[in-house]
C-alpha cells in the first residue's frame, strides 16, 4: 500500500468515524476529514439535516454519498444544530476540495463543551488513520 499523506490540522479534534470538530467561540463546526473524503472518493451528494435539530452524541445527522459509497455523518457531540452549510447541496465537491474549510457541514451549540475532551487530538487521529491504512 502506498503511504498516503493526509491533512490532519492541529486546531481540530476528531472522532473515530472520521468527523472533525473545530471550536469557534461558543459553537463548534463539524465536517469530515481529509482521510474520509479520500476514502469516499468523489462526493456527489450530501443529505443535510434541519437547523434547530437536537443531536445525541453518535447520532446520524446526515449522509454523504460518493460515486462508490455512502456514509452516515455521526454527531461528534450532543447539541443543537445552529447552522447548516446549504451551499453543499449545489457543491458537494467542496467536501473533497477543502474538507476543513469550505467543506464544513454543520455548526453545533454543544450541550457541554467539556465533552470535547472525549475526542481525539490531531496526533491521536493521525495514529488512528495510520493503524487502519496499515491493515
Amino acid at each position, binding site marked *: *500500500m*502506498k503511504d498516503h499523506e493526509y491533512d490532519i490540522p492541529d486546531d481540530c479534534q476528531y472522532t473515530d468515524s472520521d468527523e472533525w470538530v473545530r471550536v469557534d467561540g461558543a459553537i463548534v463546526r463539524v465536517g469530515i476529514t481529509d482521510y474520509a473524503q*479520500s476514502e469516499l*472518493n*468523489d462526493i*456527489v*451528494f450530501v*443529505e443535510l439535516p434541519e437547523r434547530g435539530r437536537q443531536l445525541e452524541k453518535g447520532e446520524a445527522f446526515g*449522509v454523504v*454519498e460518493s*460515486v*462508490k459509497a*455512502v456514509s452516515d455523518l455521526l454527531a461528534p457531540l450532543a447539541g443543537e444544530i445552529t447552522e447548516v452549510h446549504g451551499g453543499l447541496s449545489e457543491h*458537494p465537491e467542496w467536501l*473533497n476540495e477543502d474538507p476543513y474549510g469550505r467543506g464544513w457541514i454543520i455548526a453545533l451549540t454543544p450541550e457541554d463543551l467539556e465533552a470535547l475532551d472525549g475526542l481525539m487530538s490531531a496526533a491521536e487521529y493521525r495514529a488512528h488513520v495510520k493503524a*487502519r491504512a496499515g*491493515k
Partner: protein
Amino acid sequence: MSGAGAPLARTPLFSRHVAAGAKLVPFAGWEMPVSYTSILDEHRHVRASAGLFDVSHMGELRVRGPGALELAQELFTNDVSAAPVGRVRYGMLCLPDGGVVDDVTLYRTGPEEVLFCVNASNVAADRDWFHETRARTKSRAEIADESEATGLLALQGPAALGIVAKLRPAGAPVPKLWHFEATRLADVPVLLSRTGYTGEDGYEIFAEAPRIGALWDLLREAGGTALVPVGLGARDTLRTEAAYALYGHELDRAHDPLEAGLARFVALERPFCGAAALRARAAAGPTRRLVGLVLEGRQVARPGTRIATDRGDGIVTSGTFGPTVDRSIALGYVPAGLATGAHLHVDVRGKLLPCQLVETPFYRRKRPLGKGR
C-alpha cells in the same frame, strides 16, 4: 479491510499502479486500482480524450481443434458461424434453463479455434462449465485456460485510435468495430480488438503477460497528456452510463438474457445450451425486465435498492452518479408492462425518492458522419 481469506492476486502491472499512486481495492479476488486520482476526473478524461485500463484480471479460455466450433456453438448464445476469422461477438453462456453462467466476448481466431474473454469472477466456473459441456456433448475439442499467461489492456476514448496509430506502421489498416487483428504495437505482439466497455470508441488489447508492462509503458508514452490511467471506479461509471451489463449485477444464474434486454445477442433460431428454455420464455413473454432509471435528485440508488411500482416491487442492480449525464442513474429489474416514461420510486434508506423509467443507454457517443458501424 479485505478481511480473511485467500491472498489477493496481482496483475503484472501492480507495481506500476502503486508507483502511479493508485488506490487499490479487492475485486473478484484481485488487488486492483479503483482510481489513480479521482473517479470523476478519470471518467471525464475517457469521454473527452482517452483512458488506459488494466483489465488483466479478466480470463481467457481458448477452444480449438476438431469439434471446436461445434462446442463453441453449444456454449454460446450468439451465432459463431456468423463470425468469420477476425470477428468478435458478444454473447452469453447459458444453463439449460436459460440462466446465465457468464457473459463473454468470443474471438474467432481461426477456422477451428475461438478465444473467449470471460469475467474475472467466473474464470473457474466457466472453465468447469466448458469441460462439463465438452463431456456431455462428447466433444474432442481442446480447452485451454490462458488467463494467467495473458494480459489485457483497454484503451478507450476518442483519442484512442490516434494513440495506437503512433505505434503502428503508417497506413496500417484500422480494425473495424467488432473486428480484431493479430499484429504488433511497436515490437509487442498483440491481439488488437476494436471493442470496449465504456461507450467510447477504442481498443481492447491482449498481450502475453510478460509483455503487458512494456505495452502499458509504450501506450502511456504515445498517449502523453491525452491519456490517463483509469481505475475500476470509472470503468463502472462509464459502463453504467452506457448501460452495459455487469455479471453479478444485471446477470446471474437466476436471470436470463431476454429479460436482461440482450435478445439481440441470442440466436434463438439455432440450437445451443438453454435455447429451448429461452424459446419457451420468449413465447410466454417475460415477467420482469431490466430497465434504466433516472432519479430526480442526486442521491444514489445502490444495488439492492427496492423499486416501488404500481405493478409490484423491483430491485436495483447497479446505481451510481453518472458523471457525463450529470444525473443519478440506475439499472434494475421491474415487473413487465411498465412503459418508458413511467414515474416510479426507489426506496433509499427508507425514503421513497421519485425516478423515471428511461430508454437506455443513458449516454451514447456521437459518431462522426460517414463512420457508421
